[in-house]
């Protein structure tokens, strides 16, 4: 993993995070950092919501940043139609590996669609699948 810091969050349409993971390799002051990362991602929602309406691109590179940390977002399809299954995959990172990030988002999106197809999963609810978590972390190691 090249990225020292990465925090990944999936935010549902109601701006509620349904999945979050600290993916960074740095272990120092993890607790505080996690708070700060979530604060940054939470604040970035304002920007993302505006930007998402101005572009048809799904991958929004570096929509927001604070200090050295950059927020990149992958908007799932359907936000134009106010589809209830529109979600933001938000990644807070400090790397510049754009291609890796894009692949990461795409694969996580696929994973997420699989979760959505599970009839027992209520869209918008918290993702608690440990399998999903493992896969996401594996993808992070692979791409980020």
């Amino acid at each position, binding site marked *: 993993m090249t990225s020292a810091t990465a925090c990944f969050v999936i935010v549902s349409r109601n*701006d509620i995070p349904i999945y979050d993971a600290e993916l960074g390799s740095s272990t120092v002051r993890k607790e505080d950092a996690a708070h700060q990362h979530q*604060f940054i991602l*939470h604040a970035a929602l*304002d920007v993302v919501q505006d930007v998402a*309406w101005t572009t048809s691109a799904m991958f929004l590179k570096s929509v927001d*940043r*604070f200090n050295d940390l950059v927020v990149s977002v992958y908007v799932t399809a359907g936000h134009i139609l*106010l589809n209830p299954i529109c979600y933001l995959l938000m990644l807070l990172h400090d790397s510049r590996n754009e291609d890796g990030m894009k692949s990461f988002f795409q694969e996580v999106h696929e994973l997420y669609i699989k979760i959505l197809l599970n009839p027992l999963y209520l869209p918008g609810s918290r993702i608690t699948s440990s399998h999903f978590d493992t896969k996401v972390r594996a993808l992070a190691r692979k791409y980020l």
Partner: protein
Amino acid sequence: MEPDVSMETGSEIRVAVLPIGGAIPRDLLRDYVSMLARHTRVELSSISSFYVEHQKSPFAHQPWDTGALRIQFVVGGAPPSPWEDFQSNRKVLAVVGVCHCPSSPDLGLVADQFAAACKGYTSALVERCFAFCPSDAQLEDKSNKENNVILFPPSDRQAQELHMLTMVQDLAASLLMEFEKWVLRAESAGTILKTPLDSQSSLSSEEFIKAKKKRLGRAQKTIGDYCLLAGSPVDANAHYTTAIELARLTGDVFWHAGALEGSVSALLVDRMDLRDPTLEEEVKYRYYSVVQLYRRAFLQDNAQRVSTVSFELEAALKLARYLCRRELSKEVVDLLMGAADGAKSLIDASDRLILYVEIARLFGMLGYHRKAAFFSRQVAQLYLQQDNANAAVSAMQVLSITSKAYQVQSRRADSNSSVSPNGLGSGHSDVGKMHLQSIVSLFESQWNTLQMVVLREILMSSVRAGVPLAAWSAAARLLRSYYPLITPAGQSGLASSLTNSAERLPPGTRCADPALPFIRHLLLNEYGHSCSFQLEMLHSFPIHPSQVDIVKRNPGKEEWWLDSAPSGPFIYTPFSKGGPNDGNKQDLTWIVGEPVQILVELANPCGFDLTVDSIYLSVHSVNFDVFPLSDVDNLLLGAAQGLVLSDPFRCCGSGKLKNASIPNISVVPALPLLVSHVVGGDGAAILYEGEIRDIWLSLTNAGTVPIEQAHISLSGKHQDSVISIAYETLRLALPLKPGAEVTIPVTIKAWQLSLVDSDHAMSKNAPLSTGKMSKEGNGPLLLVYYAGPLEPSDPSGEKQSPVPPGRRLVVPLHVCVLQGLRFVRARLLSMEIPAHVSETLPKPLENGNSFEVTPDFSEHKNDRLIRIDPYRGSWGLRLLELELSNPTDVAFEVSVLIQLEKKDRHGLMSVDLDSADMDCHKTRIDRDYSARVLIPLEHFKLPIIDGSFFAKDAQTDNCVGKVSNTGCSERNTKAELDACINNLVSKIKVRWQSGRNSCGELNIKDAIQAALQTSVMDVLLPDPLTFGFRLRKKETMPNQTNPTGKLNGFSDEPFAQSDGCNLRPKGSILAHEMTPMEILVRNNTKEMIKMNLSITCRDVAGENCVEGDKATVLWAGVLSGIELVVPPLQEITHPFSFYFLVPGEYTLLGAAVIDDATDILRTCARTNSAVEPIFCRGSPFHVHVVGTL
């Protein structure tokens, strides 16, 4: 950096406002300052009267008609900025002292103090000291003029404000004149302008010319600044243009940027509100250049020593503020993010603080509340890094502002803006979101990490700032909403924070935020309704709900309980009208004089102990006294003993009042209260299937009002098992006085267990006591509707509600049904037991009293199950065999009872049912054994083959004679047949008895029906011909066939026989003796039958012993080929004699071939062919031949 900078800032004259003299009360100071500070813009036209042009004004293009001076009041003053040469608006150009005369009696002293204070402001061009509320003495004092203290004479507010306006205009005019002076001097004499950048850099290395030009450029820039301050943008622009040129030539990047910035300000003065796109483009273009230039200046110069980053950031913020509109949000966001990045380069912490404050404000203006909250929190963190109480207060306040964005606001704040609680969602919030967010509670929402952090920081800053109420509120919110996420240690910490805060608060202070997580208040009244006052309902404990149901009384109706949905225990009844009590609003009725149980459930999910001081019951809207019968101590004791269990995580975080509905409680006057109990114990009556028993129900009026109306009805399952209720007993007992008791018997017959139950029990081999019982609670319910008098007996005389309600008592009849005798199968036996030949025939059917010869069911004779009268055999008899098994653990005795109808046709004959019963012997079936019970079906034979069958079944008599019975019955519908069988079956009752007091009836209807279905015709209809043998009396010597013509001629025979051979055993025949006999042939049809009769005699081996070589019987008379014609319903005797050579058992058989058979006979014989002779065979008769006497 300076806060609140904008592009207008360059044109604002900075005026320091200082309190002078004795302490000024805070309110007054605020009042004075506000009077002053409202004059931020002074029109040039308004100051012309104060303005004196001493020499030619350097501001040639001053717009006296439209222009204005802008003043920025800095209350408390400000330290001089090192950059004030660079930007003249940073200079404090005037000082205004504010003095409160009552606290400063000596105005001379005030003047001295003011002068001293002004010393600190070297750049100040004008100084004024305003003294408010002077005393008369002070007004008289002439020295004030010299002291330069301006007194505001006490007057009304308006006058004071006018006075202040005049003073400000005077101040502005003075400032303008000073500016003119300064500019004139600067133009003529030049000026040395330095910034911290220049302080240590020597100009020596540079060319002198260049340095001079640089100096000139800087002077031009500064003159431009003054022009701007003087409200003359055109002049300012001219100077700025020159300055820009010079700065560019000399490479004075920093001043170049400053001049450019000034030029934009000049451009924008008075045009800030106009949104001209071209102007906006120009401003944008120039400002991006400004930012670039500042950045270049930063790169050029030694960054460690002094930084110009703050100017770059200020420029960025100014541009952002200028552009700050929704449609330009992207650009603004970029600017602000760039500015935020610059925070790292800022050396001074307070600069960073200002930067973050400004960024937060701008994001807030843009509508980016989350961003604003984020930067506000950064500000708070910077404050918290400072170690003083003021900073902590600031931090607390800033964090309180963010609490809305993070949705952790205090309830008080919430109530102010409860309509729009969407902090997390900004602009694009759709309609459903708010709703969803209210459902997703704080605890469940996954931004809870942020929320907890923010609350913790608020708590920390409040504690540090020493604001106990805020600390309490924050701790309370944290504890209440997030306690499941807080460790017990953390909870204890919060608890101690609460305690500490509470100690500091004045007593009686109330905080809008509830602190303790989930103290659930649960009200349960005696009807089992539970209504939660604060949080959701937990459970309901029905406390004898059936005894106290209240039913609204419908006074207009006889059956007053109809049309009025009972008020409980069912919250929903399909019959309730959607009236005023819709929704989950519950209507409760409390009755005067009857205790109501209210259950308050308290749960403490916290990691620390709580003490409950008191619990109140507050009832609004009703004026009645409530006094508790039990107190809180008992309740808490119960809770401590674990009586109230609760799961703290059950309704985590749901601070919202989901189901909270305060019930409507109405109080009615005393009602009668009926209490029931079963005589002999309220336990379930254990009955075997089919058992019949009386249950004695005792009803007592436990209320204080007599019961005047009562009605019993049935409900629930197995209602048909209640055979009778003594309605009359209850009715006669009315009115039931208080305390009175009435006992009514209810007869019930235990129902059949369903097959599933019994099969299940069988397959599992379960213990008898449990496995084969019926389930509890599926017995019938008795509903007793009762009510007191229509007129309430309450003597208070106050106006009553129309009719006091009635009540309903539900008495469940606890019946536990055990499996009893099991019916295995039923079948119709076709065995033929010959009758013995005697001097009489077996009793014919139409005799009626044939029950004499009912087979004897005897338990004493083990060798035979059935004992049959040997002289009768199965003559005219069918046997229905029931196989019963006894799977229970008690013995049963079964008796069969056949009810015989009266036969009205013959009038005289009647059947006594009791005597029929008497004759039935009992069959004992021990546990785990099976037994067969035989039921003789002889009694159902019809005497003749038509007519009466239809008469019995209530059919029309028309078809009698015309249509054959069988043909008719075949044409009859199946229903008719079923009715016929039912008629038959209903006469058979299988009663059982077990022990002394259990008796009942076996329900075998279906089984018998099934068994009879196929052969009902055989059972019901007689054969067309009946054959009978009897011994002929010796004295009569009939030698010819003799039609008697008597229908019931046989009945006379026994009496005729009395003088005969009574010494011999009845019907015994001696060998070697001529025995006269006769055969009787009876025609059961209504038509003449012509036939060919023959008689045979067989021995025990079945050999014909009349004919053949080894004939052992000699005979006299004709035995075969006897041509007979039997008239309808008549009988014919044919005499003959036998001479038995060998003693033994013989069988006599009569048979006939019917000639010219009618359709009826053919149908009886089940043949279709018209040619085929019809053969009729009679029942065999036994002859017992003895050797000697």
